[in-house]
């Protein structure tokens, strides 16, 4: 059923020590399942799943989104681009 390319950014990439992984697509694999898989390979990212958002093929997607071969899944920590002002 092919593979999913997983991309990690910012703190997650630093903790995991990688920016990119390939994951085999099993029956009914969802975005959040990939996070659990990666947690077992990279224990440093364990416990952060609640803070992470998912993007499938460069669009925000629910954690339960099913994946298919060829998809690009990104694990998105809370974003902090833009200026360095607080927002008031």
């Amino acid at each position, binding site marked *: 059923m092919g593979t999913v390319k997983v*991309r990690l*950014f*910012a*703190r997650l990439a*630093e903790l995991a020590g990688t920016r990119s992984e390939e994951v085999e697509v099993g029956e009914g694999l969802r975005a959040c399942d990939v996070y659990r898989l990666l947690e077992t390979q990279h224990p440093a990212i364990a416990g952060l799943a609640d*803070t992470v958002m998912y*993007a499938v093929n*460069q*669009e*925000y997607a629910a954690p339960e989104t099913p994946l298919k071969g060829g998809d690009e899944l*990104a694990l*998105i*920590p*809370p*974003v*902090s*681009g*833009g*200026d*360095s*002002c*607080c*927002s008031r």
Partner: protein
Amino acid sequence: MLFEVTDRELEPERLFNHVRKDAAGAVVLFHGVVRETNLGRNVEYLEYEAYPEMATKVMEQLVGELHSKWEITDVAIQHRTGRLEIGETSLLVAVSSPHRHEAFAAGEWLVDRFKDKVPVWKKEVFEGGEEWIEGDRH
């Protein structure tokens, strides 16, 4: 519309020239600049990282929404990545409109939405440590 993620110095004059049209009476140009202090810490520099392919898609959606809310002539955005020193510009947003209040409102809205939605992150390197900033607690 122009959107770029770049590791080079941003170009306010180019963005102004991009959005300046004969129908527009107002151009609002926002510069987000690296400050010397944050959360009471002395900042040494910032490191910005982006997911450019997705950033482009999210920006297109935001600019579409912006045009549905205000009468805007054109929009141009640049975000810088890599190491930025104090005083350097990390984000430029240029908005033109026939009407100045729409240019101000749309510019402010777009900066807010950018910080909320666009996949860009910053690591703050300060005296005595470093930290990835997550969300708007800064």
